[in-house]
């Protein structure tokens, strides 16, 4: 009897965006025509996005990768006997031996791309639920202690120690507490939350139940941006399945822990990634930010103690519990412990997700992992940490990618996005865009952000037009300082970062 061959074709949105559905259909058609028994599994993405659609064939030596496989390539692959790992120009050997993948340290993304996202057995077989089961036997304060000991800091961008946040919420006396997962991943150049939600959705749910038990919350919300329809669909289904299997609801896995999760969909507002704005939005209101204090851990959603964590922070807590705080803590440098899922984007030859211990250099990410630019032109500038992050010139490539070193270099890690620009980039235009983006996306609550962004854009326009350059640069700098110091949240407060870094490192683009 001929054994059925397992073929993996990702269902991740990025893979689908370059034809993965057509590729999967073509594989099924050709196999049927040639009477070959196959099983197609739609997995998440391995994160090697330049190879998408990445087709993998399961063999006894591991999975063998072919990519990028367009529907037109499929017949040729069958001709080359790819089901037995046959040679072909699109062959890359064993997936896990591809240097890009082999050099990573995957903890948060350990299962992503390997399992079938909505297969709970597959999830459990690959280490899922171990963290939750451990947590259900621990006292809440011991869970908080483990997370604190691991050194985990908020992966959304602010980098606040997760354990301390949890401890604050645990200490509150309240009839109701909430866990809110921030899946409003709006930063350009970032897609790790999306990859995880589409590729390993149960890990996020597991992390939320752990958080719920740790702080005594019964209700969780996942706030997903509307630009992520695939992730929304997958998470909705995952919540239903998790509930049906007894991991949501009353008496979770036979314990006395109760937890429920609802999904809320954003409506296209970058500012809703700011935590207080997100809470307003979950309450059905305009996403205007709120002044802190009180901090949400004391008074958040509906006025109750609320934990707001990023997708990656929550999805990392199960592995911390399963493998121990020390295991996690042993990765990383200084006060940046553990691993960070970096995302290589923009003009980059090998764009995708690189989960690596903190401390890898920017240059290593771009050259070693990313392979330089996709266009073949030289790199000129790199923006790390999203639209509110700094532009770094090539001379800054030695910076270690960790919270403190980046801050010292006048930049930030943010959500781990790395966007590469080639030598055709006009940095004055990029600075102008930073202000324009702030103008479009400001919630309007505070003046430095609402008006500052407009004035900033106008001033950069004058500089671009060559009007009184020295004086206008001075005005721009002064305005940036004011926005930094006087804005209520990071939107207005950090918009100056890309602007001032562009002026500082690329003065030649500003008529200087």
């Amino acid at each position, binding site marked *: 009897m001929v054994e059925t061959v397992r073929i993996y074709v990702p269902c991740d*949105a*990025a893979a*689908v*965006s*370059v034809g993965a559905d057509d590729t999967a259909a073509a594989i099924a058609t050709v196999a049927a025509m040639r009477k070959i028994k196959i099983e197609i599994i739609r997995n998440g993405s391995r994160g090697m*996005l*330049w190879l*998408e659609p990445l087709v993998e064939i399961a063999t006894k030596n591991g999975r063998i990768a072919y990519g990028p496989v367009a529907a037109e390539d499929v017949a040729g692959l069958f001709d080359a006997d790819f089901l037995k790992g046959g040679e072909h120009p699109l062959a890359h050997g064993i997936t896990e031996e591809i240097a890009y993948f082999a050099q990573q340290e995957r903890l948060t993304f350990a299962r992503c791309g390997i399992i079938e996202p909505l297969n709970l057995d597959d999830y459990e077989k690959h280490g899922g639920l171990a963290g939750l089961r451990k947590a259900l036997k621990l006292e809440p304060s011991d869970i908080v202690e483990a997370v604190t000991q691991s050194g985990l800091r908020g992966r959304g961008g602010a980098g606040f120690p997760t354990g301390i946040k949890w401890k604050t919420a645990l200490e509150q006396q309240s009839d109701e507490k909430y866990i809110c997962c921030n899946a409003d*991943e*709006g*930063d*350009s*150049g*970032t*897609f790790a939350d*999306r990859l995880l939600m589409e590729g390993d959705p149960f890990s996020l749910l597991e992390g939320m139940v752990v958080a719920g038990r740790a702080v005594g919350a019964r209700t969780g919300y996942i706030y997903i941006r*509307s*630009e*992520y*329809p*695939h992730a929304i669909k997958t998470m909705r289904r995952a919540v239903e399945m998790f509930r049906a299997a007894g991991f949501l609801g009353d008496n979770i896995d036979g314990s006395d822990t109760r937890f429920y999760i609802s999904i*809320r*969909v*954003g*409506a*296209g*507002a*970058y500012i809703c990634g700011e935590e207080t704005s997100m809470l307003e*939005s*979950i*309450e*059905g*209101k*305009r*996403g*205007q930010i709120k002044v802190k204090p009180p901090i949400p851990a004391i008074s958040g959603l*509906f006025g109750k103690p609320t934990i707001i964590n990023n997708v990656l922070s929550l999805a990392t807590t199960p592995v911390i519990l399963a493998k121990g705080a020390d295991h996690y803590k042993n990765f990383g440098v200084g006060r940046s412990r553990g691993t960070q899922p970096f*995302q*290589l*984007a*923009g*003009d*980059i030859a090998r*764009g*995708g997700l690189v989960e690596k211990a903190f401390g890898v250099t920017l240059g290593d990410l771009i050259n070693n992992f990313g392979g330089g630019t996709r*266009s073949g032109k030289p790199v000129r500038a790199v*923006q790390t940490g999203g*639209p509110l992050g700094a532009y770094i010139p090539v001379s800054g490539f030695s910076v270690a990618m960790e919270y403190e070193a980046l801050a010292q270099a006048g930049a930030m890690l943010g959500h781990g*996005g790395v*966007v*590469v*620009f*080639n030598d055709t*980039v006009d940095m004055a235009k*990029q600075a102008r*865009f930073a202000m324009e*983006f702030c103008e*479009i*996306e400001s*919630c309007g609550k505070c003046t430095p952000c609402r008006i500052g962004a407009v004035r900033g854009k106008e001033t950069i326009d004058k500089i671009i037009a060559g009007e009184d350059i020295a004086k206008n640069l001075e005005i721009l700098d002064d305005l940036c300082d004011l926005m930094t110091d006087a804005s209520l949240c990071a939107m207005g407060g950090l918009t100056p970062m890309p602007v001032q870094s562009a002026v500082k490192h690329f003065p030649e683009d500003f008529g200087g």
Partner: protein
Amino acid sequence: MTALINKLEHEGARAICGRHNNKPDALLEILHEAQEFDGYLGDQALRTIAEALNISRAEIHGVVSFYHDYRREPPARHVIKLCRAEACQAVGSEALAAHAEEKWKTPTGGISADQKIGLEAVYCLGNCALGPAAMIDGELYGRITPGRLEALVAERLDKSERE
């Protein structure tokens, strides 16, 4: 009077609110579903939602006008959202957008004269390693070139002509 009230009632919106137990905190979800129902949020729908949730029309207006997703006018037959954020800028999204504006003689944010094409800017579709990214009628595409964009849109235009 009855006639007037009936005229203001939007049955679809009423049912949507009911499914969410008429809870004001579900407003965003309700608006999404109401927009899905009609393609946009018309006066009738908004009045009905305000009444069902027992909140003022002003509050609803505040929410609808805050979020980019909500539309007060019917959309074009085909909606093209081009990602205009940094990662896509780095691989030519601005030139792509200029090409699209020229090709369909429509400014970003506008609808073509024949109502067939709507062009919108979006700030990040999360496909930043495979830019320029676009979403056409809700479907995500990566590594978009002017030629591929035209072909994808032509395919859809053909299909909707035939229907």
